[in-house]
Every structure is written in structure tokens, then in C-alpha cells.
């Protein structure tokens, strides 16, 4: 599993961890039943505290994304495909709204924005 921690980010390390693992599960890069690294070995690999990793795993479990089997390890839970689709939709919405605010900064009005979108859709 590939996770990149930014130690100088204002976002707490455990949140960075949760977000990146969540994304990999949602996008299907981590499959149902796949095991996550053990808390200690993941902590050693990322050079962060084991408690941070544990906190991230706990949060993911709370959100129903992983299951921890005591004494065995942490595994990716069966993802609700509806939920995953919803998450992908939300990500797309966020990106689009970002594009809209950029367009506004550039002084484009609604019609112009629609025109650009139509153009992009046609090109596809």
C-alpha cells in the first residue's frame, strides 16, 4: 500500500492517513478482504508513531471501511458500492465547483461556462 505523509502539512498525520486509505478503498485500489499492514510495521515504514496508525485504523473501522480482527489484523471491509459511487460523485462535484470558481475569477458568466462544458463533453 502506498501512502505519503507530509509532516509539514497543517492536516494532522492521522487524518492524512485516513484520507489516503479511504480514497484507495473507494477507488477500488484496495479490494475487499485485502489486509492492511500491521500497526507496528506500518508505523515503522512511515516513521510515525504506532498510535497514529492505530487511530487512523480505528477511524476507518468506525466509518465501516475496514474490519479489525483481534490478533489477526485489519482488513478492507465489503464496500457498499452505492456509497463508493456516491463518494466518486462527490469528488467530481468538488472538482467541478473548483473549476467554476476559477471561471468566475476569470470573469466568465454562466452561459460561457456552460459553453465550455458543452465543448469539453463533445470533445470526449
Amino acid at each position, binding site marked *: 500500500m502506498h501512502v505519503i505523509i507530509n*509532516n*509539514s502539512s*497543517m492536516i*494532522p*498525520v*492521522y*487524518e492524512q492517513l485516513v484520507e489516503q486509505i479511504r480514497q484507495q478503498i473507494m477507488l477500488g485500489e484496495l479490494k475487499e478482504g485485502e489486509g492492511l499492514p*500491521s*500497526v*507496528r*510495521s506500518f*508505523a*515503522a515504514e512511515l*516513521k*510515525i*508513531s*504506532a*498510535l*497514529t496508525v492505530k*487511530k487512523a485504523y480505528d477511524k476507518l473501522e468506525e466509518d465501516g471501511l475496514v474490519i479489525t480482527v483481534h490478533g489477526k489484523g485489519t482488513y478492507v471491509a465489503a464496500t457498499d458500492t452505492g456509497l463508493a459511487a456516491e463518494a466518486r460523485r462527490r469528488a467530481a462535484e468538488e472538482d467541478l465547483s473548483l473549476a467554476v470558481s476559477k471561471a468566475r475569477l476569470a470573469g466568465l458568466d454562466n452561459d460561457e461556462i456552460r459553453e465550455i462544458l458543452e465543448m469539453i463533453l463533445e470533445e470526449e
Partner: protein
Amino acid sequence: MIKMNELTKVYKDFDLNISMEIAPGSVVGLIGKNGAGKSTTIKAILGLIRPTSGKIEVLGKDPMDFSAKDREEIGACLADSGFSRMFYVKDVIAVLKKMYKDFDEEFFRARCKEQGLPLDKAIGDFSTGMKAKLRVLTAISHKAKLLILDEPTSGLDVMARNDILDMLRAYMAEDEERSMLISSHISTDLEGLCDEIYMISNGRLVLHEDTDILLGKYGIIKLSEEEYAKLDKNYIVSAKKQPYGYDCLTNEKAFYMENYPTTAIENSNIDSIIILMLGGEHTDVKEESRS
């Protein structure tokens, strides 16, 4: 693994009074200035000094009552410990084999090779880094449940420190029940290794917090005099006067980022926390806001 309750040790010019707990499977860091009491704490845990009062339990026993067998469960690495200068590493192997039932010779030899420690050279001719590596290796080669390390990386270059920290991480990852207490001046070494940090000063505990919280929730706010006067000080742990106003240590940086969006807020690290908590003229904010 370790339970210390109101443990005191009184010397003529120094006294220690500390409570601490180390759970199985955890890595605990001990930080503080020179002479803060780190080594005294470690000596009490190892049963090398008799406490004046208070209770201490290590692996379920009073360290003063340790048998030779109990000591085998502990791996220790002290600043001024070491083997005779005349010894070769192969002599060290012979000694460890006799001392520890669970000494893993194969592991020890493999690490020596990996870390560039020659078996047939007198330890007296080793570099500082090589001696430090040998000390740590000695502590981790007999499957101890508890590791006690006093300044294992002190005086080493960044590469040697990194090698040692990686060996310690591997040791912890091997068995989730193992615990470790490590003291260091070099707080970045502890940031990437410890689950919890105890900060001591003048023989007293001044801060005990999860590393995760120290790095994730603590922060430093830089303010002018006027801004400082108006600041909500509910989550300010300590403040220090600066030429431009104040540096404040908060344990809720998210609160200030949200409510004071134009203020300069930085991530803190253990070093900056030490300076703000222990540094010269620090203002006790809680006292001030009460009066």
C-alpha cells in the same frame, strides 16, 4: 510493563518525583534538559538506584528484587555502558551467549555485518557510531520484552542515528507486545518513533502527551502585544515574550486557525514545545487569566 507512582529520589542538590506508566506494546519517549532527571528515572527502573520513596513496578516486580532471570527480559543501553576496549565483537558474542538464554547469535551476526561492525577488531578502535550501534545491538539481540535506552543516538551523525532508529523500529514491529522507553535530546528522533512523550524538568513531570497530539493538535501562534491582549486564552498552554509580542503554545491549533484566520500559526515540534514550556521567561497564562 512499567508502573511508577510518586517515585522519589532525593539527592543533596536534586530531587526527582515522578509518576509514569508504560503499557505493553508502546514506545515511550523521555525528554528534558541535561540534569532534568532522565537518567535517574532510568536507573530507578533498572534497579540500579534505590528510590527514597514511592512505588515502582517493572514487569510486575520491584526492580530491587530482580533475579538474573528477570533481567534477561530487559534489554538496556546506557550512555556510559560498554564492553572492555580490548574485546573483539566475537568476544562479546561469547559473553552474551553465556548471559542470555535467548541470545540470537545469528541475528546478532547478521546485524553486525549489515551495520559494518567487524568481528575481529578491538572495540577500543571502533568509531563513536560503531560503539553506539554495538550497544543497541546488545540490547535487542536476546528477545527482551522491555527495552530501556538512555540516549542511544547521542553524539551520532544523522545516518548512524537513522540506522539505530530503524533497528529499534524493526525490533518493535517483530512482536507487538514489546515495549520501549527511550530518552533523547534529539527530539526529531523521538517524533518518528514514540507513541507517547514524557517531558521532565528539574525532576518533575511537566508534560505527558501522545506524540500524535503533540504534532497534530499543538501549534505555535505568533502575536503582537495587542493581538495577544485580545486572544481567547482557553487553549493556550504557555506563552513566551518576544521582541514582536508573544509566542503562544496551543493544544488546539484548529480552534485558532478557525477563529483567528489572519494570525500566524505554525506547526509545533517537540523542540519548539520544549523551548516554550521550559524556556526562560515563560508566562503562566492560566494564572494571568484568572487574576
